[in-house]
Every structure is written in structure tokens, then in C-alpha cells.
């Protein structure tokens, strides 16, 4: 026993030294997705202790509540005045010690005769290896670190139980998980954990082929106790899985195709066996900080292969030993899984990945299955070393081998740990530490706001994506951390939380516009916090100085009041008109089909003047559909592209589709079809597969076109056209999906369809009709024919009418149209008409407007003649609109020297290396003819100006030096190009909507409300009439929120104001409503179950220990 104690003490001592090196500077560390947890642990604990978190606009915690006990412990330390960096250091020390000592014990358990020095080596191996370095410590996720420490401990206990056949270890295994519940706050780790334990049971049973009853009951008891002890967070996990929030999340942000695409890409990057077998993370080695280059040196690569070679050799040599075989199979399995769907046999991985959706959490197999590799590789390496040493007779040689490997483990693999380099990243060739010092002014602002209003929200500007770089003395780079810095919840980022993302995108898009003030009431924000200490270009945020300028302007206008300013932070109070409480009742209600508060408000300004509710029409109960007024926004707006494509010659269109040299009538044609089949990108990226399918469609179209032109046998043509029709019909669902996307790939593929339609129409092929029908059904083109627009153009607005009725067409007062058509029929000019009302039936309708191009395309830059060359590049300045907008570039060009030039659009918020738009112009077949260039880009939110640049194209040139080294450098290609008729036009489709002729009587109802806690509110309603009104509750919409009156749940729970909860209320009178988050009740009850069962478990464990029954 003393020996074990001494070993533990030694490992603890060694761990303490390493942790001291990491924290000698006296600062906390934070980066990546872990944020700044140790800045104010009690704030984070408050966010994760309940089923619902008030973070952002509110969010369900689900499995994240598993982190609450650990966070509670940190907050207790904080309360007692322990410095935050010491709390973090103690946490790391605990994990380091548990991990290394558990591996020590695990190795001892598997190989009892192994000398102690090898047990230490196994512990060192587990701690100091590239996977632990990159996937655990540099990744800097606390649940990853916790799982890394938990895994060997759990495996040791579980295997000990399997070997001794004692249920005591089943109890111990389950109890341990409570102390590491932080590690279990990830679904992936729960799956990994139980897959590993299941493997252990199966292996020992298959080897034993006896005691089946014990193995089954041992595993089941462990699982049962684990479920019981952890019931409180497991219940939340399942509650989340079956909630509307989860399904919306999955529908909106995840698809099997997308996940598969991610898996394939990661597998290709990280899944090479030559890297996996060396525990190497290729991307990190190539793009990581400069110090990782040491791991690419041939000597290090050789030793890494040597280590794996020794492990494999030991598995082979000692495979008769069941413990070696246990580890050997697990080692092989881990390698197999870590490489993802890469060959060999990647198809097996992919099959399970595609067919068992829950396994799609393993999108990054290298990172996740790497955890399984370590507890197997560490004991195997220790036994390998022992085997090698046993084969050597010379004592000196033995020592040299052992010392050499120890030096490698400590000095090479361990170097980043011993020096603290593990906690660094590289930015623009500068090595930066994870060490963070938050400026004092944040505490000052937090305290100020907390005193003023502890419970309303903040809007934090500038606002960008999930990541942020805070340019502090010790800078922070990672996930946005306002929820760590301020007690009040805030809208401070744009992230993929259903409903929140719609609202925050609208906020981000309008952060330079005064319109943003109209969004504040809906989010219950009383203060705007301006932050000037961010590296805005690195993260493509709006320029803080420009935001400040606007905020100050609005303060001058009396819309805001500056309350505090300190160095790089300022606080503005929102005027009373722009502040609404979190709970309110209103009869000012409008239903709409799109999440766009500002567009709705533009057509209905009184919505901003009084408390109002904008109801999502899809969530509206049928009884109310005909009662509430509708504002219908177009599902799609476009200027028909057909006009544009009709201008193209047949040759132009053919050049844009696939090249076809052989027609189906050729003898060797079948060989080309075989080639096409072989080339199908099977098992890889589904997006590539879709592009490939569209490419083939294009080929078939060209073949049909050419056959019709060549007037070949009509039977062959008919047969091919039938086949092509079927192919188009098969792809119809995909085309519908593409029509909803707004990305470059979708645009390109849809344009492909237009080319094919135009081409086939010209040869009178019936396939053109099929394509046209699909394009119409997908609302990509108009189904009606219109008179030629001449110099003008048509704007098409596609609407889906939910209910029969009279609708008025609303459009901006300055908008001038030449003619209006509804469903292909001319309607009276609307500009001067008082009666803009039309009767429309339920279903799709099409509004076409004949307008001058200038009505939706405004020239911002015009250059008639330019000469641009390498020596004389051109930069054209462009003022951008306050909100993201689409711009179209057009010009004619002719090369007089060189063949290629580069085009860029660099916004004021872009880093030079990553402009918003990049393209090239090239000389076509060495001709000196004039060519036309057209391009489009959409400006980013927060950008206020930019430069369109024409410059020389930089190319990488590599030369081999003395046949050994390759030296590469960039060369700017020489060129000279004449440019004429250059225009950059802003495309803005006039905001046109349909409004139903319905009104609701205005009521004078009022409410009083009280917040009991984050998951429970009480409301007293005073309602005068029976008309429907909306009780608005500005927390993120979730089906878990219920409103109860007299013990009965109110039925009409709806989505309002893009993100919030609302209840339609008819009943008049004075009555009380309780609003609560139901999963909290489950959490409260399961907490009690877990608490009592854990207490019983601990007492039982102590009893068994006392009676020495282990």
C-alpha cells in the first residue's frame, strides 16, 4: 500500500511541477470553444445549473447541465477568494494526476509483473504524445481534458472487476463518472465510453467463454448504476433530443450529406495511415505554430515509426497473452476508426455513419477515436520496451535504450508541455499564448449595468460570428465571451442556434444602420455596449470606430444616452420608446411568412411605435388563420434570367456546358459511358456527386442538341430524350433544394439548367418543356409569357398565399413601374390608385413588374476607359450600403500583353490576404478580341466601403536546387489589359409585399409579471375583451416553455418576433398565468433521485471497503 502511495505522490509531485510552469505568470488561460470559463466561474455556473440558460436570448442546456457540479465547485473556490488562475491550475493538476496515475494502475493491472519503471513510462507516454498534445491540451476544451483523465481510470476499474469478478468495481466505475460529469457533457464521449466498456466485456467473455451470466450482469449493473447516478443530466439529454429545438436544429443546420462531406474532407486531411500510426495531426503539423516543425524532422518521424513498430511487433510476438490481444485489437480498431472513411475498408465506416444518424457526431474521427488509442498504446509501449530490453544482454545497452526513449518522450513529445508551448497558437507569424488578462474596465461596466438593471439584455457592438479576437495586453482569441464577461445576457454574436440565428443575423446586418434601434424593443435590451478592443479585420467584424461614430450620432439625436465610457468600452442607454419589457400583451398583431422584423415594420411602422407581435404564420393554429392580418413577403424575387441567356449564341452556351465529341450514334460511344460510370465520385463528397450528376445532364443535353442539329435517326433522339426527361425528374427534389439555397454552387448549377433549357428550346426538343416546368415549380422562372420588355426588364415576385382573400400590394413610395401583371394578366397601374386590393386564392401567385433597369440596379462606379498593367494596377473605390447588398461588376477587356490578371474586391473590414471577392480574367486562345466579364458579390455585414482592384496574378513557382531541396516563391505575372464600359451596380429589388385587408380591434389589456427564476415567471392578466391578443415572452422559442392557468396548459403557443414565445389569448377577465420551462421540473426530480442513489452508492462502497470485499 505504501508503495502505491509513494508512486502516487511522485506522480503528483511531477504533475505539480509541470502545472507550476504553466501558471507561473499568474494569469488564467482561455481560447477556442472553451471561452474564458475561469474569468468568473460563478457566472458560467449560473448559466448551466438549470435546464434553461439565459445566455444570449435564452437557450436550452440539455446535456450541458452535466458540467454544473464541476462549475459549482469552481464557484465555491471563487467565493472563498481563491485566485482564478489557481482554481484553473488546481483543475489541471487534478486531471494530470488522475490521468497519469490511472494509466500507471491500468498497466500494472494488465501486466502485473512489469517493473515499476515501465509503469512510469506508460504514464509518461499517455501524457506526452502528439494526440494528448494537440487533441486534448492545445484543443483546450475542458470536457476533452476531463474525458482524457477519466478514460484510463474507468478502464482500470472496469477491467479489474472483470478479472476479479466482483460487482464492487461495477459500483466504483459508476460512482467515478459522477466526479467526471464534466467529461460527459458531450454525447460523443458517452458513446465512446460505453463502446469501450462493451468491447471489454465482449472480449473477456469470448476469451473465457464461461461465466456469461456474470459478464452480462456486470455490464448491466454498471450501466444501470451509471444511469441512476447521472439521471439528472441524462434526463435533460433525452428531453432535448425529443424537443422541437433539437429537431429544428437538425433540420436547419445538419444533413447527412453535409456531415458526410465533412467526414470525407477530414478523413482525407487527417486519416492517412502514415500519420495516424505516428499519432500525428497533419493539419496541425503543417499549419500550426512554428514549434511543431520539430515533429516533421526525419529523425523524429523515424522514432515515431519505431514506437509504433515496437507496439505492432509486441502485439505480434505476445499475441497469445490475452491482455496483449485485448489491447492489440483495440489498438487496431482505434487506428481503423481514426482514419475515417479513407481506404482500406473506409466503406464500412461510411456505411455505419450514413445509416446510424447518431454516429454522425463522429464527423472528426481522428479527434474523437484518438481518445481510445491512448489508453491502449501507453501500456503496449511499456511492455514493448520491456520486451526489447529483455532481449539485450548488455546492461549498458539496456540503459541506453530506456534513457533514449525517455528522453524522446520527455524531451521531444513532452517539450511543449514542459515549456508551456502547448498553450500557444500562431497568428501572422507571431506566437501567442492562451494566457489572457481581461482589462479592468469590463468589471466596471459589468457592475454599472448590474446595478442599473440586473435582468434586461445588452446589445454588444460590433457584432460578428462565433469567434472573436480581443486585442488586450494578453489577447484572447476564441469563441465570443460576452456571456463570461457580463452578468446580463446579451446579443453579442451570430451563431447557429435555431431562431436566434435569424434574429442575430438581422441585428448584424443592420449594425451600421439606424434601423437597428427598431430591433432593440423586441430583444428586451436596455443598454448597448460598444467594444473598441477587438481585432476586427481578423474576424471580419464591423470597424469599431465606425460603429462608435454612429452610436454617438444617434446619441446626439436623442435616440440613445451615453452613460459611461472608459478606454475602449462605452455604454449607451436606449430611449424609453425603444425599450419593451420581457413580458407584454398586445393586440397589435401581424402574421408573416418570413423572419424579417425590419421589412415587416417598414410596411407597417406602427409595429415599432407600440408593443406588438409579429407572428410566424406557420406556427399559427388553424382557428386563427382567418382572423389575424397577414403580411406576405415574396418567397423569391428575381429578374428573369432567360432574357439574358437568350442573348447567348449556341456556341456560347455549348462552351459553358461539357465538351462532347462523340455522339450516341458513334461506335465507340459506349466506352465514354463506361468512363462516366467509373468516374462517379462514389463514397465521397455528396456535393461532388451532385455537381457530377449536373455535369452529366449537361453532356446529355449537348448530345441531344448535336443529334438534332445533325438530324440523326429520330428514334435514337426520342430514346435519348426520354432518358433525359427521366434524369431531370429524378433530380427534381435536388433542384428544389438548390432553389432555396443562396450559395455559389447552387447558383452555378441552376445557371447550368438555364443554359440547357435555352439550348434545347432552340432545337425544339421536348426536354426543354420538362426543364421549364421544373424551373417554374421551383419558382426559378416565370410560368407566364410577357411582351418583350425592350430596353427595360421584368421583376418577378413569387408569393405563396396562405388564405383566400383580398390583398393589397405594398411597395416603396418612390418606386416607379411601367406595368403590373398578376399571374400573367395586366393589372391597373398601382402608383396613383387608391384601391390596390386584389382577390387572390390560396396557393402560388406571381407578380410581374415591368421596370427600367435603373429601378433595381444603381451604378456606383463607372469607368469608360482604363489601361491596367503590372506596373499600373487599378483600384476603384466603392461606398457600400449600410446593410449587406449585392453588387454586379461588368466590363469589356482586351489583353495587349500577358494572358491573365487578377480581380479582387477588398472591403474595409477584410484582411488583405482574404478579400471578399476574387476572380481572374484571361486571354482566350491568344486572341486580341474584346471579351466581356461579369461578376457578382454581396457585401459583408459591417462593411462600409471597399476597393475593386485589378492587378497582376501571383503564381507559385518552384525550383529544384541541387536535386535535393525545392524552393518555392511567388511571381507576379506581367500583363497589360484595356478595359472599357466598367460599371459596378448595386442590385436592390424594391421591397414589395402583399397585405391582407384584415384588422384587429385594439384592446387596452395589461399585465403585471414577476420573474421567480430563469425558468419560472408569473403573470397577472387584466383583459377587457374576448378578442385574440398575444402574450409575448421574449425568451428564445422552445416547446418546453408552457403557460398554465388554473392548472391547465394554454394551447396556442406560437413563434413570434422571429425568436420569441407567444401565446394567443382570448379569455377576458383578471387571472393568473404561470410561465415555466417544463424540463426544469424533470431536472429537479431527477436531481433528487441521483443525489439519494449516489449517497446510497457511496455508503455501500465504504461498507464494502471496510469489510475488505473488493
Amino acid at each position, binding site marked *: 500500500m505504501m508503495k502505491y502511495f509513494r508512486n502516487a505522490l511522485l506522480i503528483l509531485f511531477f504533475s505539480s511541477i509541470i502545472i507550476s510552469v504553466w501558471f507561473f505568470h499568474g494569469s488564467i488561460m482561455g481560447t477556442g470553444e472553451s471561452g474564458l470559463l475561469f474569468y468568473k466561474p460563478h457566472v458560467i455556473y449560473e448559466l448551466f445549473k438549470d435546464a434553461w440558460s439565459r445566455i444570449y436570448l435564452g437557450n436550452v442546456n440539455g446535456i450541458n447541465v452535466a458540467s454544473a457540479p464541476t462549475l459549482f465547485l469552481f464557484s465555491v473556490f471563487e467565493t472563498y477568494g481563491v485566485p482564478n488562475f489557481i482554481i484553473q491550475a488546481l483543475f489541471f493538476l487534478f486531471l494530470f494526476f488522475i490521468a497519469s496515475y490511472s494509466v500507471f494502475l491500468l498497466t500494472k493491472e494488465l501486466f502485473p509483473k512489469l517493473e515499476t519503471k515501465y509503469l512510469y513510462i506508460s504514464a509518461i507516454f499517455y501524457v506526452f504524445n502528439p494526440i494528448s498534445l494537440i487533441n486534448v491540451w492545445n484543443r483546450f476544451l475542458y470536457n476533452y481534458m476531463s474525458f482524457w483523465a477519466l478514460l484510463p481510470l474507468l478502464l482500470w476499474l472496469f477491467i479489474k472487476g472483470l478479472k476479479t469478478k466482483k460487482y464492487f468495481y461495477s459500483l466504483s466505475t459508476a460512482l467515478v463518472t459522477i466526479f467526471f460529469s464534466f467529461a460527459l457533457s458531450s454525447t460523443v464521449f458517452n458513446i465512446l465510453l460505453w463502446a469501450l466498456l462493451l468491447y471489454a466485456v465482449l472480449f473477456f467473455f469470448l476469451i473465457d467463454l464461461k461465466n456469461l451470466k456474470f459478464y452480462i450482469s456486470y455490464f448491466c449493473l454498471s450501466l444501470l448504476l451509471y444511469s441512476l447516478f447521472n439521471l439528472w443530466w441524462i434526463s435533460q439529454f433525452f428531453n432535448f433530443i425529443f424537443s422541437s429545438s433539437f429537431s429544428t436544429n437538425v433540420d436547419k443546420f445538419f444533413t447527412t450529406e453535409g456531415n458526410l462531406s465533412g467526414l470525407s474532407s477530414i478523413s482525407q486531411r487527417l486519416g492517412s495511415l502514415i500519420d495516424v*500510426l505516428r499519432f500525428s495531426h497533419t493539419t496541425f503539423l503543417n499549419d500550426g505554430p512554428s514549434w511543431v516543425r520539430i515533429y516533421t524532422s526525419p529523425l523524429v518521424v523515424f522514432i515515431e515509426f519505431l514506437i509504433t513498430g515496437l507496439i505492432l511487433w509486441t502485439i505480434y510476438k505476445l499475441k497469445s497473452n490475452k491482455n496483449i490481444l485485448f489491447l492489440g485489437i483495440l489498438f487496431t480498431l482505434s487506428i481503423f476508426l481514426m482514419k475515417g472513411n479513407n481506404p482500406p475498408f473506409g466503406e464500412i465506416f461510411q456505411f455505419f455513419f450514413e445509416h446510424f444518424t447518431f454516429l454522425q457526431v463522429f464527423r472528426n474521427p481522428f479527434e474523437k477515436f484518438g481518445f481510445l488509442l491512448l489508453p491502449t498504446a501507453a501500456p503496449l509501449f511499456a511492455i514493448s520496451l520491456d520486451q526489447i530490453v529483455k532481449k539485450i544482454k548488455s546492461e549498458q545497452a539496456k540503459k541506453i535504450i530506456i534513457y533514449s526513449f525517455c528522453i524522446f518522450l520527455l524531451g521531444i513529445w513532452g517539450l511543449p508541455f514542459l515549456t508551456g508551448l502547448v498553450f500557444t497558437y500562431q497568428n501572422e507569424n507571431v506566437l501567442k499564448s492562451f494566457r489572457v488578462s481581461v482589462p479592468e474596465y469590463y468589471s466596471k461596466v459589468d457592475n454599472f449595468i448590474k446595478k442599473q438593471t440586473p435582468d434586461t439584455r445588452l446589445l454588444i457592438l460590433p457584432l460578428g460570428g462565433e469567434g472573436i479576437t480581443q486585442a488586450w495586453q494578453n489577447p484572447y482569441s476564441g469563441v465570443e465571451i460576452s456571456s463570461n464577461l457580463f452578468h446580463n445576457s446579451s446579443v453579442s454574436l451570430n451563431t447557429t442556434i435555431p431562431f436566434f440565428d435569424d434574429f442575430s443575423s438581422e441585428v448584424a446586418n443592420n449594425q451600421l444602420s439606424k434601423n437597428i434601434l427598431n430591433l432593440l424593443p423586441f430583444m428586451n435590451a436596455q443598454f448597448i455596449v460598444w467594444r473598441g478592443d477587438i481585432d476586427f479585420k481578423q474576424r471580419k467584424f464591423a470597424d469599431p470606430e465606425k460603429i462608435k461614430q454612429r452610436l454617438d450620432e444617434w446619441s446626439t439625436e436623442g435616440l440613445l444616452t451615453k452613460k459611461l465610457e472608459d478606454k475602449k468600452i462605452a455604454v449607451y442607454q436606449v430611449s424609453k420608446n425603444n425599450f419593451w419589457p420581457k413580458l407584454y400583451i398586445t393586440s397589435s398583431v401581424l402574421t408573416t411568412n418570413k423572419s424579417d422584423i425590419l421589412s415587416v415594420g417598414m410596411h407597417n411602422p406602427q409595429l415599432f411605435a407600440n408593443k406588438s407581435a409579429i407572428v410566424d404564420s406557420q406556427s399559427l393554429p388553424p382557428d386563427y388563420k382567418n382572423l389575424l392580418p397577414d403580411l406576405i413577403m415574396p418567397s423569391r424575387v428575381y429578374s428573369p434570367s432567360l432574357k439574358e441567356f437568350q442573348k447567348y449564341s449556341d456556341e456560347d452556351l455549348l462552351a459553358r456546358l461539357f465538351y462532347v465529341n462523340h455522339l450516341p450514334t458513334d461506335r465507340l460511344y459506349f466506352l465514354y459511358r463506361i468512363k462516366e460510370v467509373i468516374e462517379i465520385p462514389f463514397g465521397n463528397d455528396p456535393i461532388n456527386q451532385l455537381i457530377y450528376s449536373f455535369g452529366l445532364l449537361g453532356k446529355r443535353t449537348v448530345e441531344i442538341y448535336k443529334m438534332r442539329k445533325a438530324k440523326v435517326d429520330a428514334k435514337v433522339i426520342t430514346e435519348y430524350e426520354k432518358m433525359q426527361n427521366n434524369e431531370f425528374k429524378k433530380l427534381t427534389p435536388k433542384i428544389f433544394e438548390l432553389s432555396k439555397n443562396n450559395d455559389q454552387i447552387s447558383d452555378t448549377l441552376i445557371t447550368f439548367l438555364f443554359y440547357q433549357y435555352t439550348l434545347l428550346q432552340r432545337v425544339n426538343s421536348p426536354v426543354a418543356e420538362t426543364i421549364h416546368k421544373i424551373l417554374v415549380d421551383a419558382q426559378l422562372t416565370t410560368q407566364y409569357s410577357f411582351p418583350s420588355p425592350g430596353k427595360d426588364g421584368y421583376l418577378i415576385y413569387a408569393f405563396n398565399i396562405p388564405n383566400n382573400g383580398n390583398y393589397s400590394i405594398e411597395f416603396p413610395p418612390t418606386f416607379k413601374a411601367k406595368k403590373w401583371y398578376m399571374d400573367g394578366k395586366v393589372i391597373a397601374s398601382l402608383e396613383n390608385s387608391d384601391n390596390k386590393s386584389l382577390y387572390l386564392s390560396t396557393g402560388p401567385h406571381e407578380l410581374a413588374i415591368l421596370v427600367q433597369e435603373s429601378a433595381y440596379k444603381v451604378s456606383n462606379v463607372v469607368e469608360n476607359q482604363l489601361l491596367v498593367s503590372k506596373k499600373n494596377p487599378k483600384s476603384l473605390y466603392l461606398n457600400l450600403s449600410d446593410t449587406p447588398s449585392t453588387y454586379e461588376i461588368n466590363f469589356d477587356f482586351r489583353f495587349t500583353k500577358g494572358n491573365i490578371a487578377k480581380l479582387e474586391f477588398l472591403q474595409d473590414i477584410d484582411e488583405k490576404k482574404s478579400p471578399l471577392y476574387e476572380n481572374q480574367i484571361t486571354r482566350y486562345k491568344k486572341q486580341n478580341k474584346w471579351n466581356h466579364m461579369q461578376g457578382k458579390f454581396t457585401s459583408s455585414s459591417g462593411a462600409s466601403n471597399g476597393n475593386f482592384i485589378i492587378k497582376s496574378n501571383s503564381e507559385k513557382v518552384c525550383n529544384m536546387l541541387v536535386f535535393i531541396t525545392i524552393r518555392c516563391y511567388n511571381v507576379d505575372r506581367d500583363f497589360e489589359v484595356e478595359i472599357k464600359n466598367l460599371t459596378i451596380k448595386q442590385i436592390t429589388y424594391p421591397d414589395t409585399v402583399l397585405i391582407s385587408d384584415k384588422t384587429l380591434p385594439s384592446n387596452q389589456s395589461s399585465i403585471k409579471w414577476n420573474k421567480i427564476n430563469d425558468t419560472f415567471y408569473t403573470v397577472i392578466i387584466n383583459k377587457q375583451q374576448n378578442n385574440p391578443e398575444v402574450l409575448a415572452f421574449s425568451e428564445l422559442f422552445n416547446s418546453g416553455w408552457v403557460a398554465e392557468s388554473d392548472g391547465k396548459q394554454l394551447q396556442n403557443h406560437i413563434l413570434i418576433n422571429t425568436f420569441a414565445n407567444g401565446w394567443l389569448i382570448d379569455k377576458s377577465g383578471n387571472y393568473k398565468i404561470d410561465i415555466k420551462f417544463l424540463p426544469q421540473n424533470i431536472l429537479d426530480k431527477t436531481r433528487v433521485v441521483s443525489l439519494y442513489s449516489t449517497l446510497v452508492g457511496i455508503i455501500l462502497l465504504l461498507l464494502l471497503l471496510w469489510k475488505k470485499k473488493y
Partner: protein
Amino acid sequence: MEEKILKKAIVIVYFAFSATVILIQFFAGFFGFEVHLSGVLYWLLFFGWVYFVWQNKIESSFSFIIALSLFALSAFFVILGMRTIGEIIMRVSFVFWIFGILHWFIELKK
């Protein structure tokens, strides 16, 4: 007699198919087509090796030795900077290794 013919037929079909796949892969690389048949080759190798081992009653150790030798060869190429060829050899090595492990487990149970 019939069994012999069947065996020969299997071997001929196997090698003909493998040769076709290799040729397609080779020509595709040469002419710059995007062909994705490499995964098939490892399956072919695996089943070919299963058949060979079954027919010749070879022990699992043989597969392990091939796997370890190929591992060393692959490591040699990678250290010299030839990653692509190193990866291909390592994949082949892994096929033999997986087979060796499975075979050993079956031997153990016998």
C-alpha cells in the same frame, strides 16, 4: 477435376478483374481522369489473401510478418519524403495486419 477447374477459374477471374482495375487506375492517372477505384483494390487484396491463406493453410503469423515488413518499408519511404507511395504501402500493410488479427482470433478459438 471440377474443383480444380473452378479454382483456376476463380484465380483467373480474380487476377483479370484486379488487372483491369489497376489498369484503369493507372490510365486514369496518366490521362488525368478522376477515378475512384483504389478502395476496391484493398477489398480485392483482402479477399484474395483470404482465399490464398485458406487454400494453402497458412498461419496468421505469415500475415503479421508481411504487415510488419510492409510497415517498415512504408516508414522508410515516408522518412525519405515519399509520402504518397508510403501511404499506399501502409494501407496494404494494414490490410494484412487486420487480416492477421482476425485470423489469430479464429486460431485462438480453435
